[in-house]
């Protein structure tokens, strides 16, 4: 965890046509997909948690949702990377990715990593996504149950409010565990940004509860209460 000074160099739209931002910093910043930053723009009223992925060049892409006030030229202090990102197993042959509502950019960054390792990658999304790289197969969420028979790892990106419906999407009976190793980036507000153990970002686990800001926001799926 470190403080970086960064500048918004451009505003752009992500695959879901929501506002993202390109950030430039003097230093190279390499968060794992699923790690987050606290962005101080001088106007935050509580922790502004921002997911970022490194881009081809030495810049960062800050993913939606963004604070509305950001403009090209805005100067930020970025504190991070914080929390646990997704760890892809090695070797990895068949990666399944599934995104519910959120910006798919975190998972696309995982897809590229896996592709570079020579793995096959399939992405399941709701709502469906427009054009993707040619090597990346895209399917609706309804096709997800089949992927479980095939994948050796599943990465999910979803709002915490989708967890209660997840087994249905995976085609699993209630209480059944996920048949392959799986990690989930669980999205929910993290107003204190891990400074206070305020409890706002608590996530129910099979045993007790954990804080997304500190112990997550990426969790092993089978540890979660879902």
């Amino acid at each position, binding site marked *: *965890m470190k403080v970086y000074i960064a500048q918004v160099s451009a505003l752009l739209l992500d695959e879901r046509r929501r506002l993202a931002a390109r950030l430039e910093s003097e230093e190279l910043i390499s968060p794992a997909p699923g790690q987050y930053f606290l962005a101080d723009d*001088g106007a935050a009223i509580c922790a502004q948690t921002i997911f970022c992925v490194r881009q081809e060049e030495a810049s960062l892409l800050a993913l939606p949702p963004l604070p509305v006030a950001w403009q090209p030229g805005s100067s930020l202090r970025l504190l991070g990377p914080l929390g646990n990102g997704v760890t892809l197993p090695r070797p990895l042959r068949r990666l399944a990715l599934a995104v519910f509502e959120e910006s798919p950019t975190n998972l696309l960054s995982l897809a590229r990593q896996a592709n570079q390792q020579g793995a096959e990658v399939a992405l399941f999304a709701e709502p469906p996504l427009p054009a993707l790289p040619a090597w990346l197969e895209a399917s609706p969420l309804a096709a997800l149950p089949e992927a479980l028979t095939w994948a050796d790892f599943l990465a999910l990106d979803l709002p915490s409010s989708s967890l209660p419906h997840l087994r249905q999407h995976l085609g699993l009976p209630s209480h059944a565990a996920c048949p392959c190793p799986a990690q989930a980036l669980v999205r929910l507000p993290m107003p204190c940004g891990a*400074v206070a153990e305020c409890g706002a*970002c608590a996530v129910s686990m099979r045993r007790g509860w954990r804080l997304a800001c500190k112990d997550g926001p990426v969790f092993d799926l089978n540890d979660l209460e879902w």
Partner: protein
Amino acid sequence: MAKFDLAFSPPLMNAAGTLGFVPERRGLAALERLGAFVTNPISRQARTPAAGQRYLEYAGGFMLHTGHPNPGFKTAVNRYARLWASLELPVIVHLLAQEPADLAWMVERLEGLEGLMGIEIGLPPEASAAQATELVDAAWSELPVIARLPLEGAAQLAWSVLQAGAAAISLSAPRGALPASSAGLLCGRLHGPGVYPLALRAVHSLAVQDIPVIGCGGIYSPEQAREMLLAGALAVQLDAVLWSGRDLQTFTV
């Protein structure tokens, strides 16, 4: 052990619940500006986080309904007492006041600890004067007691808790309600810059009655903190600004 006096130098603290049970690295940086550290609320029994939505935004800030999760008194003291003793500034332990007997039991166990400057007790928001009196009374010990009252009800209870022996009162966030995303209402504590005029007025109207009051609510700038001290607060507590990521190096009162 000599009874500490309630003098803060500088007259600036964090509010209970804003920097954890012990400050972690970023919290420690903020402490350089503070005259005391206040712990997260601790109850006799462990408390779990509230179910459902716990955070909602509104035009003046945000609403929290967390359930005050904490590991319970015994675990908290086992985990944190040594760290409290080693902090370079005085510690105020915040206790959730529910049953007088539980409160007395906790206070008794805090008396022996090192590095404590006092106890802050969080009174239930709907407490009557009689209940408040009973709770403050139960918290009586060598350590001075700060009674934390929701700012909208502070005027009604202030004299009762002072007569029961509280050294000062502090102001907790006002209560609000907002539609929950799953229908129905969510009630909780309001934080953010929109709270400031409510807090400033509460401080002023208590201070003119010579009630020792620690102000809190919506402070985001050193000027706002100083205005609250000018309005008569004996010290002020910072809340959500400590979460905003803002650089507090220049936050002096």
